[in-house]
C-alpha cells in the first residue's frame, strides 16, 4: 500500500496536542513508516510556501489542532482545507473552541486592556498596545490581526472528522492513525478516536442514587476517591461528556470538565449538563432549588469550559 501523505498543523493552541502525538512514544517510528509527513511545523522542514505550491487535495489527511484566534490561523485553515482530501479537527480547540474559546466571554478591547494597560506589573505610560503594522526607523513590521471572536475550525472551513480531547488520549491517537491508514473511515462529520458512550457509562466510581443536597467546591472540600463525584456534590461533567479519555480527571479525583465534548446525539454540552444536573437536585421548592444552585459559581465556565464557541451562547447574551 502506498504511504499516505500526512499534514499536521497547530493554530491557536498550546502544543499539548503535538505532545500527545509524541506520547505514542515508540509508535512514532511506525507512524513515520506508514505516512509521508509533508507538513508538520514541529517536525519537518516544510513551510507555508511549500504548502501553497502543492496541487489541491495533495495531502491525504491533515490533523489540524488549535482554535481560530487570529488572521494567520484563518489563512492556514483555508489553505490546508484546499490542499487536503480529509481534514481532521484534532483536539478540543479545533473541535469546539477549547480553552482559548473562553475569551469569547470578553472582547478584544477588554483583553488588550487587561494585558497591556491594567496589568499590575505594566509600565506603559503611553498606553501602547500592539498594532497590525508598525513603522520602525528601518521599515515596516506587521503582526496578524487579533480577531474579536474565537471560532472552532468548522466555523471557518468544512471539516471531515473530529478527534476530541484536551489533549486527545495518546492511546486513541494510534487508533485514529490506524483508521486513517486503513482508509476505512466512517461517515463524514463523525467523531473518531473516542467512545460512543458517556463518561459516566465508563467511570469506575461507585454510583448510588443521585440526589444532590449541596454543591461543594474543591477549594474548601476534599472528595472521597471511591464514590461518584456528582453524588458527593462536586460538579462533574461526566454525564454530558463523551468517553474516550479513560476518565482521567475523575481518576485525578477532581472531576470531568468536558473536554471530550458532548456524547452522540447531543447538540449543546452545556445545556445537556444543566438539564441533567437540574434533574438530580434534591429540592422540592423553588426557593430551595435557587439556594442550592446559587452555591454553584460561574456555571458557564463549568458547563461550557471547552465549548463556548460551539455553544449557542453569544457575547451579547452573556
Amino acid at each position, binding site marked *: 500500500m502506498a504511504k499516505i501523505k500526512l499534514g499536521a498543523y497547530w493554530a491557536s493552541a498550546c502544543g*499539548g496536542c503535538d505532545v500527545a502525538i509524541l506520547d505514542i512514544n515508540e509508535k512514532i517510528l511506525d507512524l513515520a513508516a506508514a505516512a509521508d509527513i509533508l507538513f508538520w511545523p514541529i517536525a519537518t522542514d516544510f513551510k507555508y510556501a511549500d504548502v501553497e505550491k502543492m496541487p489541491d487535495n495533495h495531502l491525504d489527511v491533515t490533523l489540524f489542532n488549535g482554535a481560530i484566534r487570529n488572521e494567520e490561523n484563518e489563512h492556514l485553515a483555508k489553505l490546508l482545507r484546499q490542499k487536503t482530501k480529509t481534514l481532521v479537527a484534532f483536539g478540543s480547540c479545533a473541535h469546539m473552541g477549547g480553552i482559548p474559546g473562553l475569551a469569547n466571554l470578553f472582547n478584544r478591547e477588554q*483583553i488588550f486592556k487587561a494585558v497591556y494597560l491594567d496589568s499590575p506589573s505594566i509600565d506603559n505610560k503611553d498606553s501602547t*498596545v500592539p*498594532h497590525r503594522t508598525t513603522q520602525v526607523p528601518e521599515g515596516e513590521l506587521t503582526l*496578524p490581526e487579533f480577531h474579536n471572536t474565537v471560532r472552532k475550525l468548522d466555523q471557518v472551513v468544512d471539516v471531515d472528522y473530529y478527534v476530541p480531547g484536551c489533549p486527545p488520549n495518546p492511546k486513541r491517537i494510534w487508533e485514529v492513525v490506524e483508521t486513517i491508514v486503513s482508509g476505512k473511515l466512517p461517515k463524514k462529520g463523525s467523531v473518531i478516536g473516542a467512545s460512543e458512550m458517556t463518561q459516566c457509562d465508563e467511570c469506575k466510581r461507585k454510583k448510588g442514587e443521585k440526589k444532590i443536597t449541596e454543591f461543594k467546591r474543591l477549594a474548601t472540600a476534599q472528595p472521597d476517591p471511591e464514590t461518584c463525584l456528582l453524588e458527593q456534590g462536586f460538579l462533574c461533567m461526566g454525564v454530558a461528556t463523551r468517553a474516550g479519555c479513560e476518565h482521567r480527571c475523575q481518576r*485525578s479525583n477532581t472531576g470531568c470538565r468536558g473536554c471530550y465534548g458532548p456524547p452522540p446525539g447531543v447538540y449543546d454540552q452545556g445545556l445537556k449538563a444543566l438539564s441533567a444536573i437540574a434533574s438530580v437536585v434534591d429540592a422540592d421548592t423553588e426557593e430551595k432549588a435557587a439556594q442550592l444552585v446559587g452555591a454553584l459559581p460561574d456555571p458557564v465556565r463549568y458547563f461550557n469550559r471547552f465549548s463556548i464557541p460551539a455553544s449557542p451562547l453569544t457575547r451579547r447574551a452573556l
Partner: protein
Amino acid sequence: MRTISIDPITRLEGHGKIEIFLDDAGAVKNAYFQVPELRGFEKFVEGMPVEEVPRVVTRICGVCPAAHHLAAGKAVDAVYHVDPPPTAKKLRELYYSAHYVHSHIAHFYALAAPDFVMGPDSDPATRNILGLVQKLGVGPVAEVIKHRALAQEIQRMVSGRATHSVWTLPGGVSKGITEDERKDIIVKAKACLEFAKGSLKLFDDVVLANKAYVDLILSDTYELDTYYIGTVDEKNHVNFYHGDHRVVDQNGKELLRYKDAEYLQHIAERVEKYSYLKFPYLKAIGWKGLTDGKDSGLYQASPLSRLNAADGMATPLAQAAYERFYATLGGKKPVKKLLATHWARLVELVYAAERLLELANDPEVASPNFRTLPTATPTEGVGIVEAPRGILTHHFKTDEKGLVTQANLIVGTTNNHGPISMAIKKAAQKVIKPGQEVGQGMLNMVEMAFRLFDPCFSCATHSLPGSMPLTVDIIDERTGTVLERVSR
C-alpha cells in the same frame, strides 16, 4: 537597504518572525524579533473560581503545563492563606522533577543535539533527530524516547495526567500515591538518573572534546552582558519549586532577592507596538531599551541564569557537574556565553533526576496526609516556580467567594524577550557580512541564537525531529523584487 524576513519560524509555537534590515553595503542595521500571538488568559480567567484556575492555565503551554499548574497552585494556596502539608509539597516537587526530566530531555535531544552531533552547518536534511538515528544508530534515539516516556509516566502516576494535570488544590493535592507506586517511581527515577549521567557524558564526548565547538561556545557571537535571575534554597542552591528569587549582576554579585509576594517591587513590563509579547525588566535598574550592560534592566531567565544566580546545586552529581561547568568556562561567574545554556540544561537534568530519586526515596511522599483544607477567606496570592525556560509568576486577586477579580502572568520565556531579541540581532550582525553569500549555515547560526533559550512559545519545539525550517528572502527595497531566496 535590503530586508531579510525569516518567516515563518515554524518550529516556534505559533509563528515567530524575525525581520533583519540590511544597509546598502549588506551589513545588518537592525533585527526585530516578533511574537505574533496572544490568547488573553489574564482576562478570561476573571470571574472563575480560583481553584479552577490551575487546571485552566495549563493550556498556556502543552509542553510545560506542570510549571503553570504549580505556579498557579502555589498562588491559590496563598489566596486561601493555607500552607500545604509536607507530603503535598514533596509530591508536587517530585512531580515537577519528573516534568523537568521530560522537558530537558526533549529540548536537548530534539533541538540542540542535532546542531552539535551533526554540526551547525551540516546538511539541513539530516540535521534533525532522524539524522541522529542515521549517525548514532536507532539505539540511542530509542533510549531518548524511552526515558522521556518514563518521566511522562511518573507525572501521570502522581497527578493522574501526564499533560494538563488537574491535581493541585488549595492546601495540597487531590490525590496521593500508594507505597507500591512510590517503589515503582524509585525504579523509574534510577533509570532517568542513569540516562541523565549518560547525557552529560555525551556532551563531553561530542561537544567538549571538539575544539571547534568549544571555540564556538566561547566566541563572542553568542554572548550577552545582562543580569541573571534564578530561584535558590536557603543555601543558595538551585531549586525549581520554591525559595527566594535571586538576581545577580554582571560580576556575579547579588543585586537583590525577593519572595513570591514581592515580585511587583522588582519586575515591570514594557509594551512595544510590534509584538504581542511584553518586555520585562528590573525596576531597580530601569528600562533602557534593547541593550545590555549594567545600566540596562534586562535579565535572563534560563538554565544558564539559574546556575549563575546560585552558589551551587543541592545534589552531589549535579554539584560536581556545576563545578566542572565553571572550571571549564573560565573559572569565574557569571558565565556569559549563551551557548553554554545547553550544557547548563544538562547539569539541571542531572539535578532533576537526582532530586526525583531523593524524593521518591522519602516514605513521606506516600503518606495519606496530602491536603490541608483552607478555612480563611480568600484574598490575593502570588505563586512563582522555575519553569524549565525561566522563572514563572502567577498572581491572582479574588473576591471573598474566591472568584478571580484580576490575574497577572509573567511567563518563563517572556522574561527572555529582550535578551532573545538582542541575541538574534548580535548573531545576525556577526554572521551576515557585507558582500558575503547568504547560505543555510548562516541561517542556522542565527537560529541557534534563540534556540538555546528553548523558547516556550515554541511549546511544541521540544519534541520532535528537525532543524527549524527557514526561508530567507533578500529583497531589493527599492523595487520590492526578491533578489535571492534561501530555503532549507
